[in-house]
């Protein structure tokens, strides 16, 4: 491989990784938008999504096979199940805390994260679970650049979900309500918007997107375990902050930027792959110093 091939290949790698980050970051940013909560349990919903998708695929793979059609059906199932789990978590753990100080609800989110992790740890015995999808190794060769079919399907699916979300938020009545709630919850209540329902739907969509990423990651990488949500949760949070927390296009952009940073961080001459995270987080600090609202975030306006 010559240099231009390596750059192109890392671009592909960064896109794939960035798609996962973006899908998870979207949930962070949407939930922060409506209730100003950093939902630290979000990475664990990704993990639960991986497990639900695995169970669903195991149940149906006899009929539809373990290739992408089966994975998509399993993914839909995981999205619905984890979406509902997200709503339940909001009603049980966060809703009673909405009037409490911001720190209390943040700690509640950490507790929810631990509950989810340990529940899955208890159920699986802490073992790695092989995800028996059968996706094949095929792909396109362009010179020595190699793009797998799987990678194209992954990025395509992630893009489709993001476009659908963007259309939902910008073109529907409900999306408008969601944006309104993110600006001023109390005023929305006064204007007759059913705020609790808007919050529930936001949790449903955010959690479902994380579950979609979890199932696809399980199928693509081939294994799942109870701790797989921790690191990606952290990275997705970083992506959301880089893009501008609260901004939906920002989360997508932040995810891709972080994915690309990591891919190219591995390749910097003289700096080994053990430094790639240092590199990514240095960029995060730079963004926060130079543009504290993130790449696409809007500054909060204080009104007198």
């Amino acid at each position, binding site marked *: 491989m010559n240099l231009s091939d390596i750059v192109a290949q890392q671009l592909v790698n960064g896109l794939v990784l960035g798609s996962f980050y973006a899908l998870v970051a979207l949930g962070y940013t949407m939930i922060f938008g409506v209730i100003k909560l950093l939902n630290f349990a979000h990475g664990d919903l990704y993990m639960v999504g991986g497990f639900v998708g695995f169970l669903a695929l195991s149940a149906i793979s006899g009929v539809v096979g373990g290739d992408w059609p089966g994975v998509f059906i399993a993914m839909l199932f995981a999205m619905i199940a984890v979406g509902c789990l997200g709503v339940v978590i909001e009603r049980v753990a966060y809703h009673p805390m909405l009037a409490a100080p911001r720190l209390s609800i943040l700690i509640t989110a950490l507790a929810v994260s631990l509950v989810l992790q340990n529940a899955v740890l208890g159920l699986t015995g802490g073992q790695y679970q092989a995800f028996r999808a059968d996706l094949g190794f095929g792909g396109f060769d362009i010179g020595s650049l190699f793009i797998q079919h799987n990678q194209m399907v992954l990025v395509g699916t992630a893009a489709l979900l993001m476009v659908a979300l963007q259309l939902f938020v910008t073109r529907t009545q409900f999306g408008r309500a969601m944006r309104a709630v993110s600006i001023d919850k109390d005023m929305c209540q006064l204007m007759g918007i059913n705020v609790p329902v808007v919050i529930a739907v936001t949790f449903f969509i955010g959690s479902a997107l994380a579950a979609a990423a979890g199932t696809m990651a399980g199928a693509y990488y081939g294994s799942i375990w109870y701790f797989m949500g921790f690191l990606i949760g952290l990275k997705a949070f970083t992506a959301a902050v880089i893009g501008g927390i609260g901004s939906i296009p920002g989360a997508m952009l932040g995810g891709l930027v972080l994915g690309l940073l990591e891919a190219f961080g591995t390749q910097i001459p003289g700096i080994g792959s*053990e430094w790639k995270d240092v590199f990514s987080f240095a960029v995060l600090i730079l963004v926060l110093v130079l543009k504290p609202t993130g790449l696409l975030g809007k500054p909060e306006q204080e009104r007198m």
Partner: protein
Amino acid sequence: MQIIKKAAAAGVLALAFGSPALAQDAIAIGVQVPTTGSEATYGQDMANAIAIAQGEINANGGVLGQQLSMVVGDSACDPQQSVNAASKLVSLNVVGVVGGYCSGATLPTLKIYGDANVPFVIAAANSTQLIPANPGNAFMINSTGDQQATRAVEFLSSKGATTLAIVNQGDAYSQDLANLTRDAWTEAGHTVAAFETANKGEQDFSAIVTAIRGANPDAVFWTAYFADGGLLIRQLRQGGYQGIIAVGDGSNSPNLFDIAGRAAEGVFAFSNPTADFLPAAQDFAETYTQQYNAAPGPYAPLAYDGMRLLAWAIEKAGSTDADAIIEALATADGEEWLAGPISFTEQNTLARSNFIVLEGKDGAWTRAD
């Protein structure tokens, strides 16, 4: 939980059928293995093997006329958890400890057992970093990392490889093996084409795979554990890498095939001798399979040996006095155990290396050397 139940069941059985030593106090042996976390497979496997040894010893009248009891401390392959586990075992006044799987998690426990003067038979962990940290009460019955590195360089050279990419995970065990292999490989006159570190817990290795394909080495050597190794192997082959792939003894698990799938075909693994390849271990393997409905894993014979060695040392010392037991272990003189003869160097490491080479074929390991 399951192991603890099984171990307890084995203990109860042994007591029921055992000698008249029922009324006497049992000699408590600590077992430090990961029973949760990414390495739980190995840890449970070791605990199972130790329980078998315990059952057999008790059925034969125990040690010094007393029965052995087993207390499991979960190290979770995590330095903080293992320190908690070790403190727990020490506070329960165990006579000796067997186990130690992850080197990174075993390292901080050496001081705890050293301060409490508890004899510690390290059955699996084999980083050379453990050697200088050993206060003198620990004995390593697995070949150390440098003996594996030498074997790896020999074998890969014999396969015609001259350029090598080494990938580790930044923990004590895998980094140690990676550094030793790098030094031995350069010393043999070959080139290290790439030296990469992956983050533990990260699923995506694509950036590293591309870096490796850019360097285009004859062989790739993964020095860490199977769960992430499976991911790397899969992504290397998916990414179009066609050279030799070899993995260290931490990845020598049947579960590697579950995760890596077809990609694990033709992968080489360096391994301490597993039960399948040990003539002396056939009876043990049969007992294990009967009791646990699964084949013994790679460290089962060593864990079994570790428990028997400790019991042997207590018997030889003639008391449960720690100094006497340590003295007895230090003077072990090539007695035959499942995995071969055990005698120790002055640094309490195994005097004789025991590494073999395996190859992945049809979803299972076969002997390749």
